[in-house]
């Protein structure tokens, strides 16, 4: 196991842990305003200081972790849940109309960045965390579909798959019993990466107001709120920023570490 994997796993678990802990305990009520205590830099009482309304930054950060993780996780779930079967189907019926349809569909979704999808959905259905999940999730589908199809296609040429076909197995059974386990490693690594991208996307959407709405805290919105005060209270921007960076960095390191660790098996899936 490489250093990357260990360090990454530690950072990621730290963030997840913080999010879980926030369900049962936070140092202060994250919604409680306390104007006299506003704009404090980190100190003994308020470990990460307070914002312009006197709210405890630490509490807001760990509760915000919930939002980021939840949104990113479900979005990746959508992407994998729909994208992987599509990719498998496309590879199993390579060259057919189904394959063409899925590939064109992929290209179409790729033309709509998450932000644009979020704009579309929000314009009609209003803003909220659910819309962020849908927007990010939809964009994840072609990512997973394309990766799965690519890996599956090279596997279909392999002799052990030919053997399965000769033995009389149907394409669907082969896809699930033989192809899927072999692309699993690739998918785990990609899933980690998409998860980290999801965190960044959620932060961006909340920053412009298209994500989780108040009172649900979100790191992106904390950054938006801090903007006018950054010159005299930089900690308001630095702290949520670092939270994002640490989380994404941890996930990326873990993804790299996983890729190295699973490498011999990855090469099977890739060649």
């Amino acid at each position: 196991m490489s250093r990357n994997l260990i360090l990454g796993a530690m950072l990621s678990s730290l963030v997840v842990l913080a999010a879980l802990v926030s369900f049962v305990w936070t140092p202060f009520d994250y919604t409680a305003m306390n104007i006299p205590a506003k704009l404090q830099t980190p100190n003994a009482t308020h470990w990460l200081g307070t914002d312009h309304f006197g709210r405890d930054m630490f509490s807001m950060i760990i509760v915000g972790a919930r939002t980021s993780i939840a949104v990113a996780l479900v979005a990746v779930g959508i992407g994998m849940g729909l994208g992987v079967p599509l990719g498998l189907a496309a590879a199993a019926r390579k060259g057919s109309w189904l394959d063409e349809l899925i590939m064109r569909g992929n290209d179409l979704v790729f033309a709509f960045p998450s932000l644009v999808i979020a704009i579309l959905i929000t314009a009609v259905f209003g803003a909220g965390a659910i819309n962020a999940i849908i927007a990010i999730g939809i964009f994840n589908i072609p990512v997973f579909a394309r990766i799965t199809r690519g890996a599956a296609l090279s596997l279909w040429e392999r002799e052990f798959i030919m053997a399965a076909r000769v033995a009389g197995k149907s394409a669907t059974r082969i896809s699930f019993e033989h192809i899927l386990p072999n692309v699993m490693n690739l998918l785990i690594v990609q899933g980690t990466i998409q998860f980290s991208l999801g965190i960044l996307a959620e932060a961006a959407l909340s920053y412009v107001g298209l994500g989780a709405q108040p009172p649900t805290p979100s790191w992106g919105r904390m950054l938006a709120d801090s903007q006018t005060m950054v010159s005299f209270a930089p900690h308001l921007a630095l702290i949520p920023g670092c939270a994002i960076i640490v989380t994404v960095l941890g996930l990326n390191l873990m993804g790299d570490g996983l890729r190295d660790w699973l490498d011999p098996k990855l090469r099977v899936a890739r060649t």
Partner: protein
Amino acid sequence: MLRYSLKRLLSLVVSLAVASLVIFFVIEVAPGDPASFMLGINAQPDTIAALRTELGLDVGKMQRYLNWVGGMLQGDFGTSYTYRTSVSTMVADRLWVSLPLAIYALALSTLIAFPAGIYAAARRGKPGDMAVMGATQLGVAVPNFWFAMMLVLIFAINLRWFGAGGFPGWDKGVWGGIHALTLPAIALALPQAAILARVMRSALLDILGEDFMRTARAKGLSRRQALWRHGVRNALIPVLTIIGLQFSFLLAGSIIIEQVFYLPGLGRLVFQAISSRDLIVVESVVMLLVFAVITVNFLVDLAYAAVDPRLRSRT
């Protein structure tokens, strides 16, 4: 090559058509009655009826779609409900901020990433490579809008090298415009450059292991000559895909980063439109963004064929 280009062009047109259908469906069909949606719950029936006529909602959906597309092809994007001005004029001005910004950022990103990636691949495993890998690892984790805020803090507020925001307008001189767009472009470019550098490095490393690199050495090329003359050109193929994808992220990113720099781009236009439920503006802006992305991908496809001769002979 011609056949390939025509195929790609056809693909572009089809993609645009389908995209427009999707956008039309979400904006005009999904909310049920766009007019009552825009006016809100408390609106009077007569007002709604008047708006319906004005928007041309009386005709069937198919007709409305064709009218919309027909209008767009002539450059008419309708009239904004809130501002009562032609959407095309509003959008044109903003486009001249968002689009140059995205292109500026793309150029910067490529300029930084290529040398970094090549350098790292050439010095694989050595401290130089580690340094680049470390920097890029950090770079991809940084949200571009946060980075923008930090840049403003350091370079605009403290060092005063740049203004903290705003855009003077192109008519006041190209240089002034570029100056105003520089910090935003850097903020956008750096995280993307980190990604691109990694892709370049990994593409090159893959190529370096190929047989034809060994053949090149056997001919008498030095390591560096082999890297540049054979390695880099082949590595461009996977790198081009990423650049194409990057443009869509950069365009989306430029919309977000406008908020940090108070730039009069498409971002503010569309977010205000969302709050005021001005569906016409939203529809047009989204269509334009998608058009930009699809067009850039088409250009990347053409570039592919220029770089990889294998694509030219196959259809």
